[in-house]
């Protein structure tokens, strides 16, 4: 079968794989994006802080730092083409002692070395003017106006939508479990026995990049998951800052931040602790308390009462802490994109360029597509529209007139768009639309969404899941279970 032969197979539908796929979709080659989960962005890329970093945490000695700086600059154009929520709200680093101010000065020098524009060292008055909600004990800090925030999953969805629009094939539920080299290509097999062929392979498997590398007999390394727990406060928090607020960083992590998300909520976190397991995403009360006491050092008015939900993500870290991007020295046509921990999200547009150049260097001929279209349609959303706009939206499509998620004002038309875009799980719909993400966390709309998914896809309600395999919602109907005689109703 012809469509099973590709020039490039990208393993991993996270932000890294998605950005590479989109980059490659602008060239006349056949590319496929392979993802083991039932939707893209269900890995590390869904659970992070969503910050477009400011390029001052490390000097240019690190690859990740160079790519971060370059990636940051590319976001305005990406937003124009792909319409994901993005805002250059700026970053403020708050120092609470002269000791900490010294570190801030080092950050400033890092930024200068990285040629960051607009970076500013601030005295106490200036920092409080920028961010009046800060703890009055602040002594000064750093201001990086180029820093920003995005909705990471929407970013991935847009990248993938754009890639697919320009001809990349997306295969979900395709977990790469084995591979064989013959002649000039790899035969790649999934856990369910599906096979595709590809000349080049890109390992963008996030937490599982070490496993994928060994499946291909390439370099041995170990991804060390580092957990980050995050807590989310509701939309109207009075403690929401204007900028992303950082403490002065420690040795291993950037510390506990206060983040005004693009969509109006406030996020606090992340913690940083290495662990063995790649699928332990649990949160603990102990860390909740720790996170809050750290965050309150920055903004004292933050209240635990405003928490609407919490989650954890795992950073796919490598020893040494830098990204590992390069052509494999052990297997032909195999490119490693591993250890993409923070600032992965920020760096990703630059990573895609970098990987494209590696492919070229490795012999892949890249001719630009004449009909490449970098833009995808901007789906109207009720919460971004005023009353007159909403009225005309409804005239065009009445489904904009039915509110499904009341907390985030998501209409049926938006849910349908998500489903038609291939997001057929509750989490997929959630990341695409924000339905279930508000105050009531799906208490009101879950059953409504399930019915729409079922209607649009023909799936039986019992087979609809939260996020694929095993995460069923309610697969039995009344009457399926035997009822003890003495319990049955008269």
């Amino acid at each position, binding site marked *: 079968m012809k469509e099973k032969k590709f020039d490039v197979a990208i393993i991993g539908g996270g932000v890294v794989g998605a950005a590479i796929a989109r980059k490659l979709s602008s060239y006349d080659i056949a590319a496929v994006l392979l993802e083991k989960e039932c939707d893209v962005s269900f890995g590390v890329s869904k659970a992070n802080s969503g910050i477009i970093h400011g390029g001052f945490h490390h000097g240019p000695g690190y690859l990740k730092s160079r790519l971060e700086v370059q990636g940051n600059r590319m976001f305005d154009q990406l937003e124009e083409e792909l319409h994901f929520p993005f805002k250059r709200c700026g970053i403020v680093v708050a120092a609470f002692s002269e000791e900490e101010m010294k570190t801030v000065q080092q950050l400033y020098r890092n930024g200068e070395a990285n040629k960051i524009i607009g970076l500013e060292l601030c005295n106490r008055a200036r920092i409080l003017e920028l961010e009046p909600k800060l703890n009055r004990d602040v002594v000064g800090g750093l201001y990086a106006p180029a820093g920003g925030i995005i909705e990471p999953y929407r970013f991935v969805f847009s990248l993938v939508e754009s890639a697919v629009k320009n001809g990349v094939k997306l295969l979900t539920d395709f977990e790469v479990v084995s591979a064989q080299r013959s002649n000039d290509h790899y035969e790649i097999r999934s856990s369910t026995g599906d096979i595709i062929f590809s000349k080049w392979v890109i390992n963008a498997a996030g937490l599982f990049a070490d496993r994928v590398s060994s499946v291909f007999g390439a370099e041995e390394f170990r991804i060390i998951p580092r957990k980050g727990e995050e807590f989310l406060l509701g939309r109207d928090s009075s403690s929401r800052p204007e900028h992303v607020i950082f403490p002065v960083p420690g040795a291993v992590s950037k510390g506990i931040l206060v983040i005004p998300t693009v969509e109006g909520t406030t996020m606090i976190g992340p913690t940083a602790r290495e662990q063995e397991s790649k699928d332990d995403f649990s949160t603990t009360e102990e860390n909740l308390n720790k996170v809050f006491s750290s965050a309150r050092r920055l903004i004292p008015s933050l209240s635990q009462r405003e928490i609407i939900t*919490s989650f954890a993500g795992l950073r796919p870290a490598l020893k040494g802490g830098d990204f590992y991007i390069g052509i494999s020295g052990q297997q032909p046509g195999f490119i490693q994109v591993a250890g993409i921990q923070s600032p992965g999200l920020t760096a990703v547009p630059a990573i895609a360029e970098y990987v494209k150049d590696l492919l070229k260097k490795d012999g892949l001929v890249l001719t630009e597509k004449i009909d490449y279209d970098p833009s995808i349609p901007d789906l109207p959303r009720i919460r971004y529209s005023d009353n007159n706009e909403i009225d005309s939206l*409804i005239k065009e499509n009445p489904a904009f*007139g039915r509110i499904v998620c009341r907390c985030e004002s998501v209409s049926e038309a938006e849910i349908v768009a998500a489903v038609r875009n291939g997001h057929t799980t509750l989490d997929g719909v959630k990341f695409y639309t924000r339905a279930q993400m508000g105050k009531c966390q799906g208490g009101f709309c879950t059953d409504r969404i399930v019915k729409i998914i079922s209607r649009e896809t023909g799936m039986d309600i019992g087979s609809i899941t939260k996020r694929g395999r095993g995460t*069923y919602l309610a697969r039995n109907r*009344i009457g399926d279970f035997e009822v003890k005689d003495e319990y049955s109703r008269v």
Partner: protein
Amino acid sequence: MNTAEFDTLVIGGGASGMAAALSAAEEGWKVVIVEREEFLGGILHQCIHNGFGLHYFKEELTGPEYAERFSDMVESSKITVYLNMTIMDIMKEGDGLTVYGLSMDPGMVRFKVRAVVFANGCRERNRGNIGIPGTRPSGVFTAGLAQRLVNLEGFVPGKECVIVGSGDIGLIMARRMSWIGANVKAVVEIQPNPAGLTRNIVQCLNDFDIPLYLSHVVGKIKGKERVEGVEVIPLENGIQQPEKMFSLECDTLLLAVGLVPDNELARKIGVELNQETGGPVVDSRLMTAIEGVFACGNLLHVHDLVDFVTEESSRCGKFVSEFLIGKRPEKQYRTNPGKNVKYIVPNYYEGARENVFYMRTLIVKNNAILSVKVKGTEIYRKKLRHIQPSEMIQFSLKEEDFKLIKDKGVMEVSIE
């Protein structure tokens, strides 16, 4: 955009909205109810159990039956009803109010009205609100969502079930799950006393041999894909005893951890909220500090019995009517919760008429005394056979009760 004019608009067509609309319409006003569902009745629809209407109709009805009594009355009245329409926005404009409703047909509607009644009910607290740590599998439902899945869609949320919270909703869902063949392993309650009615403890737990763990919390949710179990931790003197933790295997966790007024819209127009109830602060005539904006039912404060919702909301309709003819209350004074009282609604009283109050206590007690004082002088005293936080207390003060005081002022209500 379509525009419509009414004397008063009622947000929500549940028990509360219907009662308020009916009593305002009785006085001849042009009233519209806007309801986002395709039927009137609100939360009553999913409450297919008995126990509604004992006070109001003196008979025991199911939720849908109770709703139908009122929706029939609405139908045969002159009230205009918009179903499938969600109120999105409300603002003060000129000396009236402008309200925006969203629907598929006729699209967006701009209502110009003189008064608005918030009767849009409450929503459930969820996992995030109580911060249960652990993993994020499927199989964690709020009890109300589970109730809708079972009663309206015919689905069984799961086979092995643990319920958090012993309020009436938790208890009723324990029985409901047993009736459909699920195994309810436990009801876990953080307080030392059950939160629900005694009759529900007997009929919903004891009759089904369901253990009730008082002074216990769910400390952790386990399971990667679907819920696999929970860790339950006992409390001693309010402090968790982790070494006494035990695990329960289950595939489903129902959270019945309380309701909160759905106050987002009220907040939008700038209504002040009561920290204790989560609903708007209202004066003796159930009007908020914003002229012409009223509140009643579960949106004002969470009620346990629909009969009281109806009573309060009918009164609200009358107050709206008085407002529309231009009657304004005489001087009003604050009502303050005193000793052992969680809250009292309304937040003001006036001296020259009958005032009805709803309140909740913080304690469990037999033979308690409710005492009302104005500036230290007791003006009312009532014996209560049994009180507990989950059972709302109602009392009223007549015009003559206030005659006792010459010098009116803040009223304090306490319980001993």
